[in-house]
């Protein structure tokens, strides 16, 4: 086996099964269908031209079961429609437009409850609305000491840059958002990038970081400044286009809430918050409009390979309590036990603000309803994977066995019965 082959096999993503039937009249996800509550419970296909973009931002995960269907599609569940409405709102459309709004969400939920697919749906919607999509598909890759890091001199405590990771981020962002970035011109001064040609596009700016990882962090900072610019700098007004809203997603947030596997010069572990890359994305959660042109921050936790830091679970409990209206002085408010050593930096970062303009919201994904499950299984049947007649009772049984509509479990059950009936 050639080097890297096994890893490539492990990471291989198959999005189509030619043996599955093609569904006639399958509705695609579009700006109209993503908010249509009449379609709730149906499986909407992801638009075929968008698949490459979604692949570029690594929206698909290897074990998600795309490979049993003819083409990738996702269930339009309640949370999806709500998110669709939010995306519409932020884009300045729909019933209650709120252009420039920033929504910050931490997505939590049981294993298999559809957190990663929720992020994928957000990405698909953002692509539909011509947003800039920036993703961190696996937060763990930034802290597991697999990518190079260099200390930034003069910082205290010492901070670190991961040039190759930043370079990869720029690459996937450009690949996914090429059309959009090619239209946006540089509108700010970037003295740290003297090689930047005046009047170049953001695509060209980002490309500077591809070739030379040494300057990738500076390029990323410039890129970010451009995307969040609300007005052009003096002398660069020519051809300024208002920046679109942004979608920022991170999957596997827990890995960023503890110490990383990197070591400093004294061989002490480096805290994940001391990595510039991580710090940048976490700082977006802080109070205030971190995305100047509006947008959506979706940071999902993951239960596979979960370091399960104590501080994060307390912080999430606090967010839940805050959302339930429990004040910080109340005895029911979750606090770390004495001597538990919960990470103060994490608790401080995710502390629920009393009166926030754009507070961090905790969204817990539950199981889907029976009606949604029925639509999901009808999709199986139409694809030729199920030969049973789908009745309410049949769906109800699967719904109970899957722990109340946990969609990952429903999918496993669907696969299993396919094997049984074949």
């Amino acid at each position, binding site marked *: 086996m050639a080097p890297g082959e096994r890893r490539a096999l492990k990471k291989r993503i198959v999005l189509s099964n030619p043996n599955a039937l093609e569904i006639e009249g399958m509705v695609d996800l579009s700006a109209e269908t993503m908010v249509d509550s009449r379609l709730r419970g149906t499986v909407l296909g992801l638009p075929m031209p968008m698949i490459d973009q979604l692949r570029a931002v690594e929206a698909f995960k290897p074990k998600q079961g795309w490979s049993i269907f003819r083409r990738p599609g996702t269930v339009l569940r309640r949370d999806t429609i709500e998110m669709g409405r939010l995306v519409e709102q932020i884009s300045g459309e729909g019933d209650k437009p709120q252009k420039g709004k920033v929504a910050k969400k931490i997505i939590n939920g049981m294993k298999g409850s559809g957190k990663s697919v929720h992020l994928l749906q957000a990405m698909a919607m953002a692509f539909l609305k011509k947003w800039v999509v920036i993703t961190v598909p696996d937060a763990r890759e930034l802290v597991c000491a697999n990518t190079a890091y260099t200390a930034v001199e003069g910082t205290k405590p010492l901070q670190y840059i991961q040039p190759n990771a930043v370079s990869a981020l720029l690459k996937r962002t450009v690949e996914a958002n090429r059309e959009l970035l090619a239209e946006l011109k540089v509108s700010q001064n970037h003295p740290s990038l003297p090689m930047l040609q005046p009047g170049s596009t953001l695509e060209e700016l980002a490309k500077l970081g591809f070739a030379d990882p040494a300057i990738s962090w500076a390029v990323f900072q410039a890129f970010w400044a451009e995307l969040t610019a609300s007005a052009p700098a003096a002398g660069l007004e020519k051809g300024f286009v208002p920046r679109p809203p942004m979608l920022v997603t991170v999957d596997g947030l827990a890995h960023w809430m503890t110490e990383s596997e990197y070591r400093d010069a004294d061989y002490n572990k480096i805290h994940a918050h001391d990595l510039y890359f991580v710090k940048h994305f976490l700082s977006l959660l802080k109070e205030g409009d971190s995305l100047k042109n509006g947008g959506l921050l979706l940071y999902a936790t993951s239960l596979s390979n979960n370091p399960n830091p104590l501080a994060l679970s307390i912080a999430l409990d606090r967010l839940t309590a805050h959302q339930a209206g429990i004040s910080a002085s109340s005895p029911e408010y979750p606090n770390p036990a004495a001597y538990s050593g919960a990470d103060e930096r994490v608790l401080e970062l995710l502390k629920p603000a009393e009166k926030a303009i754009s507070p961090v919201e905790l969204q817990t994904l539950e199981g889907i309803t029976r009606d949604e499950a029925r639509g999901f299984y009808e999709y199986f049947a139409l694809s030729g994977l199920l030969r049973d007649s789908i009745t309410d009772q049949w769906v109800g*049984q699967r719904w*109970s*066995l899957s*722990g109340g509509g946990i969609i990952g479990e429903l999918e496993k059950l669907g696969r299993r019965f396919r094997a049984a009936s074949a």
Partner: protein
Amino acid sequence: MAWHKPNGLTQAMQSLRLTSAISNSSINASRPTFNALRTRTYATETEAVSIPAAAAPEIDFVSFSQKPARIIPASRAYFSGSPRFIDALLELEALQARHAGLPTVAPAEAPRMAWFKLPQFRDFVGEPVPNKKYKSLVKILQQLNRIQPEFLPADVRDTLNKFLRPGNPYSKEIVPRTVDESGLARGKAKRKESHAVVQLVEGEGEVLVNGKNIVNVFSRLHDRESALWALQATQRLDKYNVWIKVKGGGVTGQAEAITLAVGRALLMHEPGLKPVLRKAGVITVDPRRVERKKPGHVKARKMPTWVKR
């Protein structure tokens, strides 16, 4: 201290001393027999005959036949080791022989009797009766019990009653548990080391195990299916809500304890499902436990590897 080592000389001296002491005393005259005993002569000498021996009274042969010459045991089985058991057995056999001609009923129609259990019977007779022998006795009891009740002789009834456990266990009828006033059925069951308590109410198919989602407790689909098998096999999974407490043992044991408990709780709601549930294998208890380890063995049965030396 010469008593300890008597020889000819010391004995002679002793007799002399005793003779002189007693002849000097005042009680000499009142106790002649004692004196005569003490002044016993040696065997080589001829004994002076004083009184002629009295003859035994004449044997009265009339009264002799009434009195035993030695003590005779009450039971003929006295020397058998378990006389009371054998007596009981003989008594029952005699009864059986005497009443062999009476009409009988089918075994199923005979009145239900709670005979002594073996340890109780051993206490009753006070003898170590082996199981097999007691079984043969119970068999006779059952045969006697099959005599039609209207023809049952009083002596048989009295004898049979002697072998009944105190406090007739079959006197009170077993009341089947029912759903309580809030519509809740409670079932308990064990399997291996696990113990499950299930509360079943009519609902929409929500399941909670120890307050957690069933997926988190049983990550294997097989365990989930086996835990809810009673409901799934009867197509009731979407008609009841299940609230489960389970502890002890491993994952499989817990799942199978839940199976049984859910089946019992479901029977309270719908007793008519019993044949279906029995067919689904939810009624039958699996009483197996881990076999104990034995000395000389590595586990219950495994022997250590043979080593040449």
